[in-house]
């Protein structure tokens, strides 16, 4: 069990800055996601928490103790890598027992502990099998077992499901989350897959180019992105971003898009110049009474819903509609945006504060 606090953490590799200055707190028992595209610094951050890299500056606290310059072996953590490294010459039981045996735990205790972990992971029947013939999922379970068996203060996982195919990844993601819900061990998990992060995480840190773009609960980040990067990285399809020239003042409740008035949440503070309006696909509705119009370019069937792509004066817009709604490619339609859900961004990509997002972005 552990709380992890990251303060102004920075890492440079020669002239390259991998992590700029990260600060966030991982509460005891949380399933915490480090999310971002490749090269964003998420793995470097994880490795600094683990003690596999030493930071250039800043602090890492595990349960209140500053550990940033301590080696990995002194941190009471367990690391699960993307490529599940198992000892090929040992059977499953020996692989899982290894960390305990090497700590000098008595044999009967090791046996009991391994049995318990195998039951949690549903691999009891495999204990005396060689690891060579195991399926990908079972290998992953054994690798997890070896991490779990030590009862570490926290688990660090670097894309543990990255190598699996989509269907199986979904299954393992649920299994991992269920395992966490039984054990409640603090888990820090690196992924580039936004859906995986949304699905499994209690909290998410979104990183880009070594900078923490946003930190919070999945639904809050999804609804109220702090930057245009977060707006497009989270969600599939991404948030629609419509750049326009305009001005919004303190208390404004609408903006003008290509000559049509569009309602927005009440602004706190103002900005002008190159602005960007952001709206999620499920908050775009077809409404012939709406002034802002577009032409239907494509309709993609997804079962319950469909994704409709529209060409509009300020760029392409995707709408998520019920698949029972009949849409014809080539038609011109009015677009109504759900006013309560809209974000506005300044030219530098940062969200403008409104009464809707101020609680999440808490700096207004």
């Amino acid at each position, binding site marked *: 069990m552990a709380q992890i606090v990251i303060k102004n953490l920075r890492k440079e590799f020669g002239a390259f800055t991998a992590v700029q200055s990260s600060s966030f707190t991982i509460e005891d028992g949380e399933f915490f996601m480090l999310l971002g595209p490749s090269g964003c610094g998420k793995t470097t951050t994880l490795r600094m928490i683990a003690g596999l890299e030493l930071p250039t500056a800043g602090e890492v606290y595990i349960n209140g103790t500053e550990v940033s310059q301590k080696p990995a072996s002194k941190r009471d953590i367990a690391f699960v890598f993307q490529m599940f490294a198992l000892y090929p010459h040992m059977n499953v039981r020996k692989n899982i027992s290894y960390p305990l045996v090497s700590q000098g735990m008595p044999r009967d205790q090791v046996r009991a502990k391994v049995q318990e972990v195998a039951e949690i992971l549903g691999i009891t029947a495999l204990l005396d099998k060689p690891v060579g013939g195991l399926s990908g999922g079972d290998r992953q379970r054994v690798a997890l077992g070896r991490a779990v068996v030590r009862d570490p203060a926290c688990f660090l996982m670097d894309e543990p499901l990255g190598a699996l195919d989509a269907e199986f990844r979904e299954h393992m993601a649920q299994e991992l989350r269920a395992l966490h819900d039984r054990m409640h061990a603090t888990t820090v998990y690196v992924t580039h897959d936004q859906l995986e992060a*949304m699905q499994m995480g209690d909290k998410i840190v979104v990183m880009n180019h070594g900078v923490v773009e946003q930190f919070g609960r*999945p639904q809050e980040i*999804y*609804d109220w992105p702090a930057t245009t990067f977060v707006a497009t990285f989270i*969600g599939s399809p991404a948030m629609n971003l419509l750049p326009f020239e305009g001005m919004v003042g303190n208390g404004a409740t609408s903006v003008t898009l290509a000559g049509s008035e569009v309602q927005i949440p009440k602004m706190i503070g103002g900005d002008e110049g190159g602005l960007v309006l952001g709206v999620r696909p499920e908050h775009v509705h077809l409404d012939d009474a709406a002034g802002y119009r577009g032409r239907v370019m*494509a309709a*993609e*069937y997804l079962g319950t819903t469909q994704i409709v*792509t529209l060409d509009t004066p300020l760029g392409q817009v995707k709408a998520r509609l019920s698949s029972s709604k009949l849409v014809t490619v080539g038609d011109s339609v009015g677009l109504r945006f759900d006013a309560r859900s809209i974000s506005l961004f300044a030219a530098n990509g940062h969200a403008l504060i409104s009464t809707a997002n101020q609680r999440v972005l808490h700096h207004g």
Partner: protein
Amino acid sequence: MAEVLLQTVSKSFGRQTALEDVSLTIPDGAFVVLLGPTGAGKTTLLRMVSGLDTPDAGEVFIAGSSMRGLPPAQRNVAMVFQQYSLYPHLTVRENMEFPLKSPLLRTPKAEIDRKVGEVAEILQISHKLDNKATALSGGEMQRVSIGRALVRSPNVYLMDEPLSSLDAKLRADLRIELKNIQANLGATFLYVTHDQIEAMTMATHVGVLDHGRLVQFGTPRQIYEQPVSIYAAGRLGQPHINILPADLFGPAPSGATFIGMRPEQIQQGEGQDSLVKRVEHLGDQTRLHLAFKNHDLTTVIDAHTPLRAGDIVKIQPLRPFYFDAAGTRIV
């Protein structure tokens, strides 16, 4: 473009049956997606059409002609594989021109330039045309290999997971582009994927393969709304369809062993109590993991539901599917 016909095609590799008695018509201008897990026979079927493999029994026809004995080069098919293979010593432009420069085709230079320019534009690689193929990222290399197929006008395009190595954003863009290209050209596509989103959004027809047998062939909507079996129902839909004992909610039709419910087939607020075990916020929707009479099920609810783990929700089936003991749907 052309119609492709498979007639009772079977193929084994040693004792492993890869395809079993598959008959399938790919209409001229159709976009057919083959769905199934690893080992279902998708890639083998594609290779039968391409000529990279030959059937043990049965026959393949393209544009009405039997392909028996014809090597890939004489079938006028264009292939894209998951693993891109480009000529490393050539530029992007030279790689894409290569098929058009075949002595069999005698394409005029101006025509080659036009075609390559157009395809590069669609695939967002115009600015890379004069780069060495090896100086590209993985995603760019894959687009070049798709481009190399698209510059041609073959009888049929054969694609084996062409988008699976690309990142999510690009994959979404190319889904629409490939679909547009196919629709505009009236081209025949045979396309293999694991990704059900690709299948649903691009296909005019989906073929569901199970251990080498074609178990259902129809529009994505047919497969989703009228699956023939538990297996076919499980190919499409996220979250996965819930399969439970038929009488769990009350009397079931005779012969039914299982009840199948997609999230929209579970009515909330009425019926019997279930316990919320976990609430998963995915942004545009929220998934509810429920426990009901010792069974787990998953459904979706409004993104901003106030429900939390430990709450009670009433549920009942709404026009569910029923399946017999073998998994075949009872209509």
